[in-house]
């Protein structure tokens, strides 16, 4: 079930109503049933995949606590392998076999490529990672195993964050299923406002920009440099608004029910360096990779070589997590490269800035850093969005050429959409800047009820009238 569907508009109030009407002990089972219905709205039979991984990790968690030494380790490895195997079969089988056959052909072995037409279960990478974090945390002794199967299953399947995160840690989410959540007006309305903001990002900005981006990136060779540049900037905002919009809706939806999910984005395009960007972008995944890949591989504590290796491995794996395509791997590697070069040249850059009198806190230096970080990010998004490396290379080598200001629109994105798109991006950035200085919700709460409701109602109508409702999936669902 998509958040941006009529079905969800009926589903959520029903679930919320039932949740608060039911006695507390029935609430978690009800949430589990609701989550199953939510997931089965995509491809019903795929619920079995979730059932299998949930059962394996549930049992593994218990046995990891009960056993010691090699047996304990075996339970951990068994759980990780079986969970990852599901991910591999559904997401990477075609990719790896295709590349293997390609390599074999290069050295003269004529192997047929096995054809497996499997539809990727929605959000597989997200709930797989959430499940993995549970067993690892139990193994590390930082989380007690969950003996209540219903609660554990609801932890993995909790519908607001089931298909695209935030990827929760057991320490943050599991205990919340034992808490009693009363209907609290302030909290419920805060959740509703958060959801409204998420819908604005998704429906008004992301889906509108998608019309342009999809047209241009479907065949970049049909478009001039200006269109390629606009499409790339639009994609940066599309993917941000799409994913952070989803996170806002998920966090807001959970908040209505009384659950607190972790934040996933903190104005990433306001970052002044690549490391800062990664502290602001998809935080739940970044911290997951930090905790379960980067640090185990060596982190920064085992010397420079090990650190270099850890960074590159983590970013390459992170790229691959996003999709079974070399473009994603290249995007990951490119970001790893940015981070390494950025760290290596930090002292040199400080000296250059110092020589021209631009000290750390000067506005101009901050602006230069912000713009250069954004441009580097854009280059990464080109690789990420392109269908293949040839297209990516074409965009990179042509976006500065042949700018034709008379030819800006595309087939799907009529020119009249452009002012709306640009105005929405400006509104987004202004709201984010304002929110960085003062709390917008508390500012609004201070208003008398009539102007406050007028503002809220106006905002809802703005989303209704300017939204794009083509039942487009959230980009990150495919991951």
């Amino acid at each position, binding site marked *: 079930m998509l958040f941006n569907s009529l079905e969800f508009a009926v589903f959520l109030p029903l679930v919320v109503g039932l949740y608060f009407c039911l*006695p*507390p*002990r029935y609430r978690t089972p009800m949430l589990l049933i609701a989550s199953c219905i939510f997931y089965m709205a995509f491809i019903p039979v795929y619920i079995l995949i979730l059932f299998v991984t949930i059962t394996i990790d549930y049992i593994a968690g218990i046995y990891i606590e009960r056993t010691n030494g090699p047996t304990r380790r075996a339970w951990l490895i068994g759980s990780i392998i079986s969970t990852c195997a599901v991910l591999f079969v559904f997401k990477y089988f075609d990719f790896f076999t295709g590349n293997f056959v390609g390599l074999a052909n290069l050295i003269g072995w004529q192997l047929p490529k096995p054809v497996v037409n499997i539809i990727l279960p929605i959000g597989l990478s997200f709930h797989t990672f959430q499940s993995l974090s549970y067993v690892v*945390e139990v193994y*590390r002794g*930082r*989380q*007690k195993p969950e003996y209540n199967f219903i609660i554990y299953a609801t932890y993995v399947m909790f519908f607001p964050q089931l298909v695209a995160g935030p990827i929760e*840690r057991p*320490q*943050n989410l599991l*205990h919340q299923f*034992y*808490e*009693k959540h*009363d*209907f*609290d*007006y302030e909290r*419920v*309305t805060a959740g*509703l406002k958060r959801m409204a903001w998420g819908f604005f990002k998704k429906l008004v900005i992301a889906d509108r920009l998608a*019309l342009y981006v999809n047209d241009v990136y479907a065949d970049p060779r049909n478009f001039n440099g200006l269109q390629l540049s606009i499409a790339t900037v639009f994609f940066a905002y599309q993917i941000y608004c799409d994913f952070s919009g989803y996170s806002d809706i998920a966090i807001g939806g959970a908040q209505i029910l009384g659950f607190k999910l972790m934040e996933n984005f903190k104005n990433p395009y306001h970052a002044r360096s690549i*490391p800062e960007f*990664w*502290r602001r972008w998809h935080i739940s*995944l970044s*911290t997951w*990779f*930090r*905790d379960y890949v*980067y*640090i185990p591989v060596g*982190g*920064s*504590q085992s010397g420079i070589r090990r*650190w270099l290796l*850890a*960074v590159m491995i*983590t*970013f390459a794996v*992170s790229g691959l997590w996003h999709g079974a395509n070399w473009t994603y791997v290249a995007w990951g590697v490119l*970001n790893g490269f940015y*981070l390494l070069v950025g*760290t290596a040249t930090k002292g040199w850059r400080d000296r250059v800035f110092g020589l021209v009198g631009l000290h750390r806190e000067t506005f101009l230096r901050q602006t230069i850093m912000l713009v250069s970080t954004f441009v580097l990010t854009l280059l990464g998004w080109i690789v990420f969005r392109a269908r293949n490396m040839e297209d990516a290379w074409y965009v990179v080598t042509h976006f500065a050429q042949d700018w034709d200001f008379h030819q800006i629109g595309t087939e*799907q994105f*009529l020119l*009249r*959409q452009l002012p*709306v798109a640009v105005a929405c991006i400006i509104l987004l950035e202004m709201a984010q800047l304002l929110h960085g200085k003062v709390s917008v919700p508390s500012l609004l709460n201070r208003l008398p009820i009539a102007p406050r*409701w007028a503002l*809220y*109602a106006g905002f*809802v*109508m703005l989303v*209704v*009238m300017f*939204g*794009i*409702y083509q039942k487009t999936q959230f980009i990150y669902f495919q991951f």
Partner: protein
Amino acid sequence: MPLSPQIERERDGAPTSPGNALASAPPLEPVAELRGKKSVTQRRGRLSARSGLIRIFCFFGLIVILLFGLNAMINSGLRRVTTSQFGVSNKIVQGKINADIVISGSSRALTHYDPRIIERITGWRTFNIGLNGSQTDMQLARLKAYLKHNKKPKLLVQNLDLYSFLTSHEIYEPAQYVPYLSEQSIYAGVRRVYPDAWKWKYLPLYGFAVEDMRFSWMMGLKALAGIQPREDHFDGYQPRDTSWTGDFEKFRANNRNGVVVKTEAQGLRDFKELLSLCARRGIPVLVVYSPEYYEMQAITRNRKEVLEKANQIAAHFGFPLWDYSESPISRDRSNFYNSQHLNRSGASAFSADFARRLVQAGLVGGQDRP
């Protein structure tokens, strides 16, 4: 992935390390306790929850009122539009046309027949009700609406194209129909193509906000304020001041073996129903295949069969078919902006030629007016 040493240090010293988070988790409340007698605070909470719920319901009630109110305003505004495609539709349902010659068809009819030229040459009041992006099914729906509100024409010109025997598989520019869904024929036509179109009629703003990408609703609000859209339909005719786009070359390159145009049984039935309706109402019909760029004709492999089928059906009802495939207009690229559509100058030449032929054939009275 914040993987700099700094981040790692931050993480190591973070107060929200997993162990701490577990320790700081609130004590688990036994379920039995939750079901026990409610304290004063809980009762107060219930009261506040009740008033909170009432507030939330009131707010959503306000939103529903706004949705219905705005929907009514937009519909009312669009029905007041006197220009553009909405102006044409409004004239149809308000019975303000009552023309002697009515031109019906798809975008080819819309852009090929200039009623002002035809009227000047024939002396008969002419109007073009051609519908952009439509097949015969939606053209029939519009013709029924026309005949319901206007006096029957002395001549109906039904323009053909290669796709006349196909049914609509989607509704092109849904907003152009939304204000007129109270018209039985239009609603039935739209619903046959898109069964979910009931949402356009009954869910407020659905047809404008969800289905329309052209902000037609803004046009409705502007019209309420007395601002009319720019006129681009002249007695229903929409001239296109566009030069050759080059789309045909791409099309031809993608179809090196030529193309075969499909026909559907339902599409044929729709065409027959249109002619049968006119026959029953005593409206003479002239079926016309208006100019099509000759290079496109050459790559359509079953063109002859399609035209032959049209000819047979028209002949069955006793209506003539005029085919402009061999017209000199069809051979001159400067008359077209793509293979199917004439530009303004091509349409002017064709309209004049067509009107003269009408007079010569004795189908209309000839009163060439300045």
